[in-house]
């Protein structure tokens, strides 16, 4: 989430807690008989506090499963997740006596913990600017999950557009129009054909351009296609424009918009993965962390001293 002025109190509180924890830790280390230990009273307290915060942070995902429960606004949970989760880092380090763990389990836990914290921080950092980037670069944004669906509709729309402008395809499209899920989309009722049925004089270049260049791009937006690059795309369309009668210019313009939308959707898909990719690390490892942390807690308490 975007760290803005609203987070100031959380940030101060976290800082304060960290400083207080550090002070406590300093006192504790000075007075500890045998150096800092996770099993000593204060060490255990740090561990309990840190793992409580971790569990709280982990509960965010449970809370997301019950979004209608009125147990605090999700926003507050998220802020808590972020700051308290961050606070767990110093606490756990204090618990571990600023070491990196010496047993196999503790070492693994420490690694997991660091990766989880770092990936979470990465996520926060990404969330600071990527939404803004998407706001600027992808004005035609849609719902990420629906991108393939929307693209399918774009294809249908483009097919209909060209069919309306240049006459039917007469089997020039091998896999017909890949209907199926797209069948639901009815041809827009309001859209009147620009040209009454029948091939308009001089529409052939547009049709060919569509079949040879645009349609393959719409079906498979490989990065290589010039249509995927707004700078290279414009000249391509400009080459076609003089070849067709002015009545079809609007159709050409629409086609260009469709290509632009297609390009933006691909871009959106990439940005979205970038914005959410860290979750693929953060989430699984945090679950593993909680599981192993639980084992660690049970075993360490069992064999304490």
């Amino acid at each position, binding site marked *: *989430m975007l760290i803005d002025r609203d987070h100031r109190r959380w940030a101060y509180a976290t800082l304060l807690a960290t400083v207080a924890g550090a002070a406590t830790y300093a006192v504790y280390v000075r007075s500890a008989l045998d150096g800092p230990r996770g099993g000593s009273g204060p060490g255990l307290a740090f561990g309990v506090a840190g793992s409580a915060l971790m569990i709280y942070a982990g509960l965010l995902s449970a809370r*997301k499963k*019950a979004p*209608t429960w009125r147990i605090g606004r999700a926003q507050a949970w998220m802020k808590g*997740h972020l700051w308290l989760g961050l606070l767990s880092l110093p606490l756990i380090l204090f618990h571990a006596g600023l070491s990196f763990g010496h047993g196999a389990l503790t070492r693994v836990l420490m690694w997991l913990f660091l990766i989880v914290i770092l990936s979470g921080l990465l996520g926060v950092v990404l*969330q600071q600017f990527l939404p803004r980037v998407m706001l600027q670069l992808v004005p035609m944004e849609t719902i990420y999950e629906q991108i393939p669906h929307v693209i399918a509709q774009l294809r249908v729309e483009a097919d209909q557009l060209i069919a309306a402008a240049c006459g039917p395809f007469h089997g020039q499209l091998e896999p017909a129009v890949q209907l199926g899920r797209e069948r639901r989309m009815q041809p827009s009722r309001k859209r009147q054909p620009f040209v009454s049925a029948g091939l308009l004089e001089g529409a052939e270049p547009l049709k060919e351009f569509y079949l040879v260049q645009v349609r393959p791009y719409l079906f498979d937006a490989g990065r290589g296609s010039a249509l995927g690059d707004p700078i290279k795309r414009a000249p391509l369309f400009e080459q076609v424009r003089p070849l067709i009668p002015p009545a079809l210019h609007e159709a050409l313009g629409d086609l260009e918009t469709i290509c632009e939308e297609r390009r933006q959707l691909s871009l959106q898909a990439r940005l979205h993965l970038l914005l959410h990719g860290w979750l693929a690390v953060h989430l699984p490892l945090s679950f593993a962390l909680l599981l192993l942390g639980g084992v660690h807690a049970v075993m360490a308490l069992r064999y304490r001293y």
Partner: protein
Amino acid sequence: MADPAVHLTIDGRATTVPAGTTVFDAARTLGIPIPTLCHQSNMEPVGVCRECVVEIEGARVLAASCVRPAEEGMVVSTNSERVRRTRRMLIELLLSDHPRPCARHREFGDCELEVLAEREGITTPRFPGSPGPRRIDDSLPAIRVDHSACILCDRCIRACTDVKSNFVIGRMGKGYPTHIGFDNDLDMGASSCVSCGECMVSCPTGALTNTAAPATELTTGMKFGLDELLHIPIFRGVSSQFLEKNQGGVVKRNFRKGEILCREGEFGSTAFYILKGEVEVFLTAPLAHVKKAGGALGFMSKLTSLLAGGREDPRPDASRRPIPIDGPVDLPLDHPVAVLGEGELFGEMTCLNFYPRSATVRATGDGVVLEMLRNVLQILQKNREFKAQLERNYKQRALASHLRASPAFAGLGDDALDELKERAELIRFEPGGVICRQGEVADKFYLIRIGFVKVTQTHPGGEMVLAYLSRGQFFGEIGLLAGGVRTATCTALDHVEVVCIGVEDFNRMLERFPEVRRSLEQTARERVSANRQHLDAVRTVPLDDFLDQGLMEAQSLLLLDLEKCTRCDDCVRACASAHDGVTRLVRDGLRFDKYLVATSCRQCKDPLCMVGCPVGSIRRKESLEIIIEDWCIGCGLCADQCPYGNINMHPFRVMEQDPGGVASRKAVLRTKATACDLCTDHAEPSCVAACPHDAAHRVNPREFFARELVQISPAHGGAR
């Protein structure tokens, strides 16, 4: 208001009318008919046909009475020799260009021009006609345009422009070739005409006539012979010729016990009249898909619901009332079943306005119904006897429930109701008809029987829609209670019938029942203050691009701050889990500034969606959020009407009574309309509460954007 009283004399009879009344209307109050072609009572007079000329004492020339206001001490003669001569000349001139008989006269014998001519005894005009027949345009299947028969009275133009606001028809050319034209003089079929038929209805001649539309013949059921038809009491008094033309529009249907006559949600075009037998009217749409199932809850689910914090909206919902249906009765909320018997008519709304059926009708015994199309129904409705019967039925069965449904009238005694039944009057309005006008003298109280009424207020900035009212709701009380002047204009949106209660009866009722008066005054106050709030809001915000997206219309927008939103979709999932697994929010839409205006109900000030709901299940609560009640029948009209795609139709798996046969329950998928209900059973909309990134906000756009609206430069704002 100026001095209301103007005294004048018409044809020797003195009368007093409010200032501003035209001579034409003044004569009408005296019962003096003045022939006219271009003027119709629901339109602004333009005075083009000059047929209504009258002679005014002391005036140099004759005046068109439809546009001439009455003046103090005016002495008018409507039938003087000079007037008659002039009128005759005008008819002759018009007729010289008119095909005889025109299509309408040929079919129905009621071409207004030719009727006038016949009355004046003109058979052949003395003047030569036009050089040749003009064009006939039959590019539209339902309406045929014969330009030869057109007398350029402008009625169609006004109907299209003022009544229906379609702005298709206009005058073209000048001089002799002047004619009416569609859009930029296109064929009617190529124009943006929506085939509403308003022009055809208003045309006095055969210039715009109904061609045999595909649906004027009913194919199922037994056809009637003309004689048989004339023997049915309700057709008594109807012109046999006219009936003959429309024979195909009515059939007799025998039904057996248990047979379904019509199902809710179906689209239809017929009305039913019960000749014999009884039918049962009910809703199969179950009444609880939004509310959670109650009953004995386990501990866990109790805990869960405690956590979920769901609760019934604690606000008293005074607007809950019986479910209005397309029949003479309303269905009670708790047990939506009613019985209709002999001599009752149902399905009017569907027939006239092509709304979906509002309820399912099943025969409880064998019997006979008449099924009729719009043309026949309209004939019937013009029939005085039938109209009286309808009125009687309505007053007997629905008036009381309509009145009592509103808490304002809950205290009304039975005797008072009986009295009202006697005195109340049923008035019809065509689509676009003005029921009462802002600034007029208030003399009636209205209760809607069928149709939708739009309440608007005119302000320097333009017209503002205050409300849409539907069956069972009342209006006009503000004018009666305070000052006696109408504060708003009420217009019929479709075929509307209202019950009028005169000012004396109304006042008597209030005297007898002070508590009714108090609560009515309360209602009036609330409405006035709500209106004022609307108005203030409109006044304080500058109007600019903001309007383009209709954001100004919205009372509440779901905005997603795209600089914060990580597109995690939690809002959608929250919405779905708050609403039985379907989302009422689509996270796509247009952007405004850095916000995504998510597709979710905007609680428009002018909620187009509410117009036409056949069962009145989409409505406003008093706090103005729009809710769709449980008894939605899934016709989808509201979803079509919503300009923003905010209403969606979702199938729900429900148990319902099988209307077809035995009283067994079966699981079926019922489609219902869903729209954002702002999670009124929670403190905050679920989507907003579930947004982890502080990106979702439900805001009043005018307040939220108040600052931005001033700052946004044209280059920055606006739609994408």
